[in-house]
């Protein structure tokens, strides 16, 4: 965990701007850990993208994630 702690400590000094309308206390640890998460999930997303491209070369379509956003319909008031 020393390596992770080092990354997190270094991250603590970089930009994590607060916005004018934030009324929650976001928690320092919760802000800082997002920098590390962004790096990890970014690598995973890239890996998935290349995997999908590689599979596509062999004509294999990757499993589609279930859409989390419903279809747009007419707005109802």
């Amino acid at each position: 965990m020393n390596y992770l702690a080092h990354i997190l400590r270094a991250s603590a000094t970089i930009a994590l701007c607060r916005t004018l309308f934030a009324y929650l206390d976001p928690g320092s640890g919760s802000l800082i850990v997002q920098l590390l998460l962004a790096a990890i999930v970014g690598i995973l997303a890239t890996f998935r993208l290349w995997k999908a491209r590689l599979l596509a070369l062999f004509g294999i379509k990757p499993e589609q994630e279930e859409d989390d956003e419903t279809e747009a319909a007419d707005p109802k008031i």
Partner: protein
Amino acid sequence: MSAIERIGGSFRDPSGSVFSADGTIYRQVNRSYQNQYDHLMQSGLYKDLTSRELLIPHAEVEHALLDDPAVYKILQPRQLPLVTYPYEWSFSQLQDAALLTLAVLKRCLAHDMILKDASAYNVQFLAGKPLLIDSLSFEACQPGQAWQAYEQFCQHFLAPLALMSYRDVRLSQLLRVHLDGIPLDLAVALLPKRSWLNLGLSLHLHLHARAQKRYRGTAPTANTPRKRLDKKDLLNIADSLRSTVAGLRWDHQQTDWAGYYAGDSYLETGFNSKRQIVSDFIDLAKPHCLIDLGANTGLFSRIASQRGIFTISVDSDPGAVEANYQNAKQTKETCIQPMLIDLTNPSADIGWANSERDALVKRCQADCLLALALIHHLAISNNLPLGKIASYFAAMAEWLIIEFVPKSDKKVQQLLTARDDIFVDYSQIGFERSFTDFYAIVESADIKDSARRLYLLRRR
């Protein structure tokens, strides 16, 4: 100007507040939030979210409060028939509310906005589907900005879902004690070690909890202009949370009551007879809103909901409520609201000044109760005198459809196997005597092939 009543739970966000007037709920938008509100409406985000049925639609209305220069707009959102809380939801209800929140977050990012909070109390169920009800949860997304509500999302949604999935579904009740979500240090202390094998949980809960502990009281430097988290990073984090939440499972078949109707309480004739009598009684009472107490998976609730009567289908068994919600979801039912409620300890007034989250009875405007195969559990398992049951029910609604289960019934005998029969008043005569103090008997009928009897009662 008609009297307005501020809603007790609406005080945290200075952007606005919720109030009621003449039985209608309104949302006040403060002048300080004007630019953000205008951005929501003009960027296309509002239209996008409402057309996808992710955000509650509203209309801007005239109101005397607009004379106050600090007030920018008054919104009249579509009215909800019932407000429910996360500790009253089954596993899938909380999971669907979490996925809804993440879906909204992704749409926000597409319009250069972000969710400034991620409270589970901002999600309600309307016509069977979760919906974000806080129209002031949005703010412009600043370059380099981390998600301010990330901690809140993990505490309100991910931690309870992980505990329900990996440890015990009843741990959702920690949300009653921790109104701002389950603290992550508590969640990770309760999670089994195998939860580290789930990458999403190890990142968003275990690592997150460690970072919280390490950096508590440390201010992240705010003035460095170097951009580190771009929109794609936030989208990746949202996707990671989504796949973690969606990947959590709980098997609801394992609880005592979820398979109740497969049991042997009735023969088929008796079951059909009971259905017919309940249908007839509902047709006589003609309620607008019915609460089915001890509804199990909602089989009898549906007699009412299929007539277009809004039906609150309440049970204390998480598996039964889960099955009820899954059924309603699969068949796209719009008139039924399954809820996890222990009738012997129903949701009370809690939070700041005991007015932040309301008791169940304050939120339900029902005019009919359905209490089938319930009275023996209250009177015998919970030692409640019949008079106390009658008095509580009479305070809740005008009409009562109730099934009396006599001592000779197999189910009552099971309850009495290991204890002394101290229930001298528990008889049909004792039941009628206690309940007629509060109600008039409108109709009653025996259930075929059974010693049980159904009553339609009307409050005196």
